[in-house]
């Protein structure tokens, strides 16, 4: 009778902690015997928890093509994340997943030109897709990445962007920061307006992630440019407890973000009641 229970987690070990920005750290997690905890698809999430502190949902930042470990880029903002930010290498946590629907990388995205737009920590879920697409580079068309943050120091994965993404053929990376800063000769301005300035071909499939306000204005901008909402994807975040569409917390309209999302096509979001 008793079978696998989705709510009972595995133990995971933090094997590396990378300081990305003043409030974002990236954690590398494996099982105690050094393996990847489970397979996942780009855009899926995992529940991480620390006993007696709490459990929270995080998007898996590393690409599925990485078969050795998983990475999570986590911004310090609540009690679980604050605790994680104090954690050292070797600390065990619990992990369960994968949860939610991935980005349609194996069907819809194939052969398309892709435009990734991220703001702040919003790069975390997109990094998984971007690296997946880089790994299977020949399956996809041109890739554009627009990424903005408050300042140069707040750009997550800056090193990877500079050292790897920018050196790839057929990938254009456009970085921007909110305000002028010493030592920054790149673009200055908010992401939505930068996207307008750059002006993209509307045949591209766009993927957005960032703070709600950035998503709102960027989406409006894309629609004005002529993008069809059926070609724009985003990923949502709501309070979650179970991760399997039962506890009722992430319920919006008839959808459960943990199970039916977190990846949504923007025209699907329009059908949901306006609560997000």
């Amino acid at each position, binding site marked *: 009778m008793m079978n696998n229970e989705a709510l009972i987690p595995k133990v995971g070990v933090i094997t590396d902690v990378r300081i990305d920005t003043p409030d974002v750290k990236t954690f590398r997690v494996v099982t105690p015997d050094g393996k990847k905890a489970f397979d996942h698809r780009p855009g899926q999430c995992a529940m991480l928890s620390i006993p007696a502190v709490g459990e929270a949902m995080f998007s898996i930042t590393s690409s599925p093509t990485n078969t050795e470990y998983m990475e999570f880029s986590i911004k310090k903002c609540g009690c679980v994340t604050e605790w994680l930010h104090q954690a050292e290498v*070797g600390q065990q946590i*619990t992990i369960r997943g994968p949860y939610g629907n991935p980005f349609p990388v194996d069907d819809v995205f194939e052969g398309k030109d892709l435009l990734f737009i991220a703001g702040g920590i919003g790069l975390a879920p997109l990094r998984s897709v971007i690296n997946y697409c880089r790994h299977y580079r020949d399956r996809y068309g041109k890739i554009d990445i627009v990424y903005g943050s408050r300042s140069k120091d707040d750009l997550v994965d800056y090193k990877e962007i500079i050292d790897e993404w920018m050196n790839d053929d057929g990938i254009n990376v456009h970085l921007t920061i909110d305000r002028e800063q010493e030592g920054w000769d790149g673009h200055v301005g908010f992401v939505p307006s930068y996207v307008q300035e750059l002006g993209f071909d509307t045949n591209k499939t766009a993927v957005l992630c960032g703070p709600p306000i950035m998503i709102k204005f960027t989406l409006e901008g894309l629609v004005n440019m002529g993008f069809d909402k059926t070609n724009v994807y985003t990923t949502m975040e709501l309070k979650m407890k179970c991760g399997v569409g*039962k506890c*009722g917390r992430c319920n919006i*309209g*008839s959808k459960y973000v943990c199970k039916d999302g977190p990846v949504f096509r923007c025209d699907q979001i329009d059908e949901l009641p306006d609560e997000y």
Partner: protein
Amino acid sequence: MRKCSLDNLQKVFALIAENASLYLPVDKVGGAVFEKWQEGTSYSNALNTVRSAKDFFFPQTENMMEFKTKGKEIEVVDTRDEHEDFVVFGVRACDVKSFEILDRVFLCEPVDSFYANRRAHGVIISMACTRPSETCFCQTFGIDAANPGADISCWKTDSEIFFEANTEKGEKLLSSIAALTEDTDEAAVEAQKAKIAEIMKKLPLAGITPDKFGGGKTSEFFNAPQWKELSQSCLGCGTCTFVCPTCQCYDIRDFKTNDGVIRFRCWDSCMYSDFTKMAHGNIRNSQLERFRQRFMHKLVYYPENNEGIFGCVGCGRCLAKCPISMNIVKVMKSLGGEA
């Protein structure tokens, strides 16, 4: 169909209790509650229990697992074990239907093993309602109080009790009490059913229909102006949620014991202000939004995901218990343009 004299009912209980824990409604100060049968426990005449029967499968608090921590190390201890066999007697038609609604949530993939475990070990004996209350409106959702269903259906007359098995589990249980029951025709039960049908027509809420609601009606009702006045005096307490047989939202929490951590789940309410609160904001900041979520879920979202089945069974508990007497009937009437 089998029957036995009411005088023999205690003997039937005793026989059932030999093989499994038997629970049944018992009168207490403040209303009937499900209690474990023991020698001398008498079956309540009350129409229904104050709390719903969902506790049997989805208890208010349930330990899920334990953690032992040592330095940086964590051990996850799976504390699940096979639930004991149990029988619940005297469940009304509305509550029987509520199990189907809960099943659709907990038994869909990935199956909730805690719920499934209890469900597999429980046998439900239902009881037809001969005196529904003015707050009853199960017929609104197509539930027949005269045909309560579950593993075994029962009908009680002044002198006898009639049993009809509906499932394999029910057959098995019924055969185990065969020595105390006898075969009978259906005349008495049919007569009672006809009588109940007459009563149902007379109930004050008999005319309520859910036809205006259902899947795909989100845009029609979500921004309805009525929400404001409906939710106006809602206290944001969890009474309706916790007495409701179909509300199944839960919270998962940790409790630090003296030598470890217990992770448990407990009922939660979408009416509570912290239900959707995250570290960086809350998607439902006002009571209006939270109130709307509860009723939209029962009347629109749930049916949308479950072939038109509504998330309410018309048991009337929220009508009787809401501190401010706001309830799903008033919501349906108001949104449906009847009030």
